């Protein structure tokens, strides 16, 4: 199976769908770029994460569109385009900018199908980069998927691995509902095996990256990697864990989480979000109410601190969950 980076996996999915379906269009700030530079050559940027190499040359200006710096306009245009027959992929450069386009997402795209009595569909994807760890500081490092998961009518994908990034992106583009697709900026260079072909990964189906008997660890996005390290380090102590990666926070694969907890009796949830009203607290609440009698120990919830993301690298590391915190939490559930 080919090995590639997360960024390349996203590109592959975009390429497959752009080739397959001419109603798929891409729009965002600096996706093509380069028009203002000294070379004057479009497609100099390929997007700030480098996920659109050669797209301008391949697909042309009508399908690959540089937008003004207005998230509201970008998402509104995408929502309107989706309503009228296109399948737009809009890029919001940093998830932190959701505030500018939240009305378009929450009150418009999310509500069209419902309010128009099923006569309207909004097959739109909003790609966005999230997460801390690169000293991008308080306004460029937040997660935001917890707030978006809360909204009925929106689907939310948070892939942790390149294979999931490709598979979920394919499904997102083909889905007839608005999907907000969260990609961790510190995972862009992460490598992994990615299946060939064009099979999408269905939403609402979690992956289990480790199997064990003593504890269930549910982790989101980049935290899946931290959790893997933590779990593997406990091999010597004879503690084995299930590692559940929901992959999509909405719809959420409750069944896999609950069944895993029924098997192990213990739960640690690891989420890079801030603690209040996070996906972590949501999952913990679901497990506590639906699998209470399966639990043999209190649920451990690990999130970032309730603080803006620090710029100082030392403080940023302290802000984020750490592998050690996860290991300690797993051990605590065994007491």
């Amino acid at each position, binding site marked *: 199976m080919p*090995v590639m980076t997360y960024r390349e996996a996203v590109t592959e999915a975009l390429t497959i769908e752009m080739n397959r379906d001419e109603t798929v269009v891409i729009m965002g700030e600096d996706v093509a770029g380069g028009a203002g530079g000294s070379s004057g050559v479009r497609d100099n940027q390929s997007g700030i994460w480098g996920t659109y190499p050669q797209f301008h040359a391949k697909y042309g200006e009508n399908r690959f569109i540089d937008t003004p710096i207005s998230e509201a306009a970008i998402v509104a245009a995408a929502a309107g385009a989706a309503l009228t027959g296109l399948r737009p992929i809009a890029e919001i450069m940093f998830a932190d900018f959701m505030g500018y386009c939240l009305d378009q997402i929450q009150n418009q795209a999310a509500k069209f199908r419902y309010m128009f009595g099923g006569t309207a569909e909004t097959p739109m994807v909003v790609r966005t980069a999230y997460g801390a*760890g*690169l*000293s*991008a500081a308080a306004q*460029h490092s937040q997660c935001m998927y917890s707030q978006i998961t809360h909204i009925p009518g929106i689907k939310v994908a948070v892939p942790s*691995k*390149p294979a999931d990034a490709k598979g979920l992106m394919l499904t997102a583009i083909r889905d007839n509902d608005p999907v907000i697709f969260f990609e961790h*900026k*510190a*995972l*862009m*260079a*992460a*490598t*992994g*095996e990615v299946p060939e072909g064009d099979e999408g990964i*269905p939403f*609402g*189906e*979690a*992956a*289990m*990256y*480790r*199997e*064990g008997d003593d504890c269930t660890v549910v982790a989101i996005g*980049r935290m899946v*990697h*931290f959790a*893997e*390290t933590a*779990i*593997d380090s*406990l*091999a010597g102590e*004879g503690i*084995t*864990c*299930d*590692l*559940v990666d929901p992959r999509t926070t909405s719809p959420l*694969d409750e*069944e*896999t989480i609950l*069944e*895993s907890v*029924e*098997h192990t009796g213990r739960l640690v949830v690891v989420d890079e979000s801030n603690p209040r009203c996070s996906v972590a607290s949501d999952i913990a609440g679901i497990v506590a109410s639906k699998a209470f*009698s399966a639990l043999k120990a209190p649920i451990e919830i690990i999130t970032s601190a309730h603080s803006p993301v620090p710029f100082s*690298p*030392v403080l*940023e*590391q302290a802000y984020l969950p*750490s*592998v050690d915190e996860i290991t300690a939490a797993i051990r605590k559930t065994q007491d």
Partner: protein
Amino acid sequence: MADMTAVAMPKWGLEMTEGTVVKVHVAVGDEVTKGQTIMDIETEKIANEFEAEASGVIKKIIVNEGDTKVIGELLAIIGPADASDADVDEFEGSYVSVAVGRVEATSTAAPAAAPAPAAPAASSAPASDDGSVKASPPAKRLARKLGVDIAQVTGTGRGGRISADDVQAFADAGGAAPAAEEAPAAAPAPAAGGEVRATPGAKRLAKELGIDLATVAGSGRGGRISKEDVEAAAAGGGGAGSYGSTPVTAEAAPAAPAQVIPGDNAVTVETMNNMRKTIAKRLTESKQNVPHFYLTVDVEIDNLLARRAKYNKANGTKASVNDFIIRAAGLALKAVPKANVQFHGDELHYFENADISIAVAIDGGLITPIVRAANLKSVAQIADEVKDLAARARENKLKLDEIQGGSFSISNLGMFGIKHFDAVINPPQGAILAVGAGEERLVAKNGAAAVATVMTVTMSCDHRAIDGALGAEFLASFKELLEEPLALVI
């Protein structure tokens, strides 16, 4: 020492993790000012000039042109001219990089392609499958454990997805391979050594009642036993014992070796419809609030039967005995008007004519349409009306004014062979007449035995509206009319 400045690989841009020193513009001993370009550094994305962040003398250069260093790594040291070599070495030795994103090195930079190859006994990476069967990972794990071919399992989840519960159910139904390694932990069947899954409340109750949890069927997720399940098991067991006398398979061939008597008695729960609920409510109110008393007379109806036959022949009608009874009651209420009464708290309402409610049995219940002014109508008219009302009653097509009101009711169970019964008054009516079957009986006439067709009627009276004497007076009139029925047909 405080004057020493570290020249470290800078971080330009969010994603930069390392840089290559393309050119070094200074040498050890050179004096530099803050802002002066000291190196050219190239990253994946850009090439840029690197400026000194402090003024001083280049005390040491640790990097060579062409070297690639991770962000934060020490490249050179700037310090005061008089700093000694020892000072410089000490500074270098104590330098700690505050590199950002170093955690990537352990978590993501290493190819994530190989899940836990170095930890054989640890949390295993799930066995890979071709992904053609739509099942949750815990379901796949359970299937492997129980020796179940997951492709055989029917999924009850979204889009036919198979859950661990589905796999367990399949295994419990006998779908597991005989070579399953261990007893399924969640099996509700008598568990050999495995723990029975039950809520703490269930365990406590089972212990109190002396019930073996292994014999209880669990209705919860994965077969978990709840308190309700234990209670049901306890009730079912006791119930079967007390019913005992009606084995379900009574008609089975006696030669059948084992007669299976169910441990519990299957119950079909039917929610009461509005009609039943209304009947229940009104009759309960009536029995609770109305002071009933009962007067019984036997009526000889041979004459009535003969009269009926002649009447029907003469008029081409098909009047029933009950139609004559209705007419008789109507006339009797006219003759004894104080019995034609409704009770209304402080008031008694006496009516000009006799509106009589006739009890009609319909599907699932009972309804009482009214024959208005029975005293004014002929038997033939009454017969037609009753026929029409009964038919419409069965079709639920009665109008409101056809069932509301009336001062007197007649309920006839004669066609079912009932000899005698006491009916329940329909408030606010003053009385109701329960009519039994006419049957040949031995009677005494003038000291000698004789046979007559006798019908027993019982009048239930509301003692607040009708006293014993009044009721008796009514019944006497009624009986006379029926036994000398010419008056009924005039």
